């Protein structure tokens, strides 16, 4: 059965095959037979007209009741605020309002009440007084919040009115957009989410009414701009608090105010500082690295766009990943998003960090957001990675294949597809997939390493070793190939050579955690527990969050009876 309902009219029309009937909320048992053309007459001036599909009588009644209460609550509210109404009417209205004020209805009312400041004729004090006299707790809260929010409502309304018609093309479209914004709760969100950075903007950009629509995005961003400064980044760094600290002064002396410099100088300076920060992170000097990051970002804020700040933080997040500190990667990615809430790339970083921290739901959510902000290809690959990580290999494979179809020049999807085939033991297909990838993307070291791994997995150690060695020659800065070579040597029992390879890798790539843990694992496998313990502890010192090192250390301690 289908039903058409309106709370304003207080009527439901039921449609089942050829039969049409209606009932009123006042008398649901009295069903009246109708003809199809009467539907328009019944609802013709209703603006809350709703269609329910595949419904039943109970559902129709409950939905009609909800819509009716919304409409009547709005009337009660307006009557209560109106000092031209007599006191008795206002008192009765306040009783009804208190009865109907559920969370849903409060949201509905604020969606409209927060569009404009209250007109001068509105008697908010009187409404509050009436509610207080009758101890109507919910209504009191509602009116107090309404009162507190008046200045932000005014600000938000003024910002809306100031938006140029050019942005919408026509005045009519501006009005249509306003209605869409009200339905999506835009006015309410901008007011109630004040002080939470760009949360409202972000929520709205993800709302189905606006999601993926470039024009809507531009309008919402421009609308939010005037009150954005009030809410952005306040708690990240407190300038007044830091200004007098010696460290800040020292830093300021080191990095003169960027706005006095040319664009190229600014960029060079940022790059230099990023290098220094990365170095501190790599050395495990976290407080220093973190503090300097804060200073750098604060400095960038003076003359850079949010997207540049986000880029800096994403770059540092990538570095955090490269040194195996996924929590740091997460923190920096989150910060990047705070700086620029619609930065798709920052979301891919966040998703990646969540995935590496085994927080798969959060990872999927982040990749979804990344896609909605334009990073579709990376987001698809990230999603597939998560699916692979949670063992949904078929789905992961399908996702990679879809990505290959949509983005045929994306090597990551090709590599990913081969990785999944390898993970499910379909080695022949994995090998073919890697070879296809190498043919398509000859400079793709990931595919070369992947191919070598498959060869190792199927026991073709000589070929695997040869492939790794070729990759090392072609891509001497690729740590994976070095570690892979060491792994093969370990697998064929050439432990000394494996150990040497790991040590060489550590020398070449002092921030590569895999080489450190690999070396320690070999020492453990040799029962060289003292050395293994030292190796694990060294690793932990450098990479305190690394689980492999911490577990390895525990295993060694257990082996030596500690």
């Amino acid at each position, binding site marked *: 059965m289908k039903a058409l309902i309106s*709370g*304003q*009219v*207080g*009527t439901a029309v039921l*449609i089942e095959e050829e039969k*049409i009937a*209606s009932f*009123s*909320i*006042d*008398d649901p048992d009295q069903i*009246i*037979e*109708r*003809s*199809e*053309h*009467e*539907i*328009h*007459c*019944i*609802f*013709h*001036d*209703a*603006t*809350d*007209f709703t269609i329910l599909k595949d419904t039943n009588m109970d559902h129709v009644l409950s939905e009609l009741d909800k819509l009716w209460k919304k409409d*009547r*609550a*709005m*009337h*009660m509210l*307006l*009557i209560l*605020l*109106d000092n*031209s*109404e*007599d006191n*008795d*009417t206002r008192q*009765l*209205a306040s*009783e*009804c309002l208190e009865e*109907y004020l559920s969370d849903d209805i409060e949201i509905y009312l604020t969606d*409209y*009440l927060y569009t*404009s400041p*209250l*007109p*001068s*004729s*509105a008697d908010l004090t009187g409404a509050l007084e009436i509610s207080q006299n009758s101890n109507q707790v919910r209504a009191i809260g509602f009116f107090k919040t309404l009162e507190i929010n008046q200045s932000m409502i005014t600000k938000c309304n003024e910002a809306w009115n100031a938006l140029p018609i050019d942005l919408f093309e026509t005045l009519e479209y501006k*009005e249509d957009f306003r*209605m869409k914004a*009200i339905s999506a709760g835009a006015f309410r969100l901008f007011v109630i989410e004040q002080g939470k950075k760009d949360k409202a903007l972000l929520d709205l950009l993800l709302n189905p009414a606006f999601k993926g629509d470039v024009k809507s995005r531009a309008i919402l961003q421009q609308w939010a701009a005037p009150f954005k400064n009030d809410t952005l980044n306040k708690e990240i760094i407190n300038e007044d608090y830091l200004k007098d600290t010696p460290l800040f002064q020292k830093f300021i002396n080191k990095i003169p105010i960027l706005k006095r410099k040319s664009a190229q100088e600014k960029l060079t300076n940022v790059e230099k500082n990023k290098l220094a920060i990365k170095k501190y992170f790599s050395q495990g000097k976290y407080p220093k690295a973190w503090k300097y990051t804060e200073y750098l970002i604060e400095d960038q804020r003076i003359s850079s766009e949010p997207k540049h700040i986000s880029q800096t933080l994403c770059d540092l997040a990538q570095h955090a990943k490269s040194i195996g500190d996924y929590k740091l990667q997460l923190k920096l990615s989150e910060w990047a998003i705070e700086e620029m809430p619609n930065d798709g790339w920052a979301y891919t970083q966040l998703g990646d960090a969540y995935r590496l921290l085994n927080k798969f739901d959060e990872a999927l959510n982040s990749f979804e957001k990344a896609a909605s902000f334009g990073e579709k290809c990376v987001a698809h690959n990230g999603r597939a990675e998560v699916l692979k990580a949670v063992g949904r290999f078929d789905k992961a494979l399908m996702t990679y294949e879809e990505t290959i179809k949509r983005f045929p020049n994306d090597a990551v999807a090709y590599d990913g597809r081969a990785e999944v085939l390898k993970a499910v033991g379909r080695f022949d297909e994995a090998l073919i997939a890697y070879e296809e990838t190498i043919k398509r993307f000859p400079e793709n070291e990931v595919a070369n390493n992947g191919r070598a791994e498959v060869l190792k997995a199927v026991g073709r150690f000589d070929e695997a070793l040869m492939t790794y060695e070729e990759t090392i020659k072609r891509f001497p800065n690729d740590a994976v190939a070095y570690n892979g070579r060491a792994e093969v040597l370990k697998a064929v029992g050439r432990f000394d050579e494996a150990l040497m390879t790991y040590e060489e890798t550590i020398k070449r790539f002092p921030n590569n955690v895999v080489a450190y843990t690999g070396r320690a694992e070999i020492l453990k496998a040799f029962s060289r527990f003292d050395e293994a313990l030292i190796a694990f502890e060294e690793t932990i010192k450098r990479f305190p969050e690394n689980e492999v090192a911490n577990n390895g250390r525990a295993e060694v301690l257990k082996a030596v009876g500690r």
Partner: protein
Amino acid sequence: MNCPDCKNIIPDHSRTCKVCEYDAGFPNKRAAEKPIEQTALDKRYTDALLDGEKRGCKDNILQFQEEIKKSKAVLCRSLSKIQEFVSSDNELYATFYQLVSAGAKIPEKNKYDPIRPIVDGMLFPYYHEQIRFAALTLNNSGAKGFGNCSIILKDDTINRRTTVFEENSIHFAQKKRLVATEPVPAGYRATWEHRDLLAAAKQADKIDNNTKACDFPGILLNSIGSKSDDFIEVHIYGSISRQGVESLIVKKPKKKADRVILKSIKNKLKQIGVGVEEIL
């Protein structure tokens, strides 16, 4: 028609001459005043009286016709919409409830009612958006299916811009199997001042020797709030303001919030001298 001043053609749907701005009158009224319409209506009326004469009830028909001259236009709405209507000059309603009312309405072209836009296009070509629908009543009762409140309109605020039509125009189109390419048959519409002729022509066969004056309201408008309702449809050109309300008849509300709304409506209408009657 041709403009009496500049002689240029004034389209049927246009209120004024596009060349010299001559006020040509309301398009619905002009349509009802066309000689072809008046001649056809006169014939129906004369035939109805002749038939009444044969049946010996001509006097009753004439009495009915006389009563119709006092009939009113009534439109039915929900309490919520009446509150919005009577609060139109209230700043709070204008600021906030107007936004609620700006939401999406049921589309005219909906799959349940495909015939409506066609009929509207035939009766009111290019001006159907200007037309408000009501019903003709002798006892202030309206078509019950369309809302619990009946608004009775003051004659002097509508008589120059209102016409009447045989019955619910959709029913009419279905019964007569009207097609968009052909004109609406003549003789089924009249100006407000000639509504008595139309009502008599239409309902004469329902009047006989036994018909009493107290039966007239039910003959004119037979509404139980279902699809078999029968009434003379009233077409009002342009908007209706609360100052145009003569009285309001409301079915006693069952729910508390509706009683509050009614109280508020009464207060507002009282200020402009309009009475409200509650019925069971």
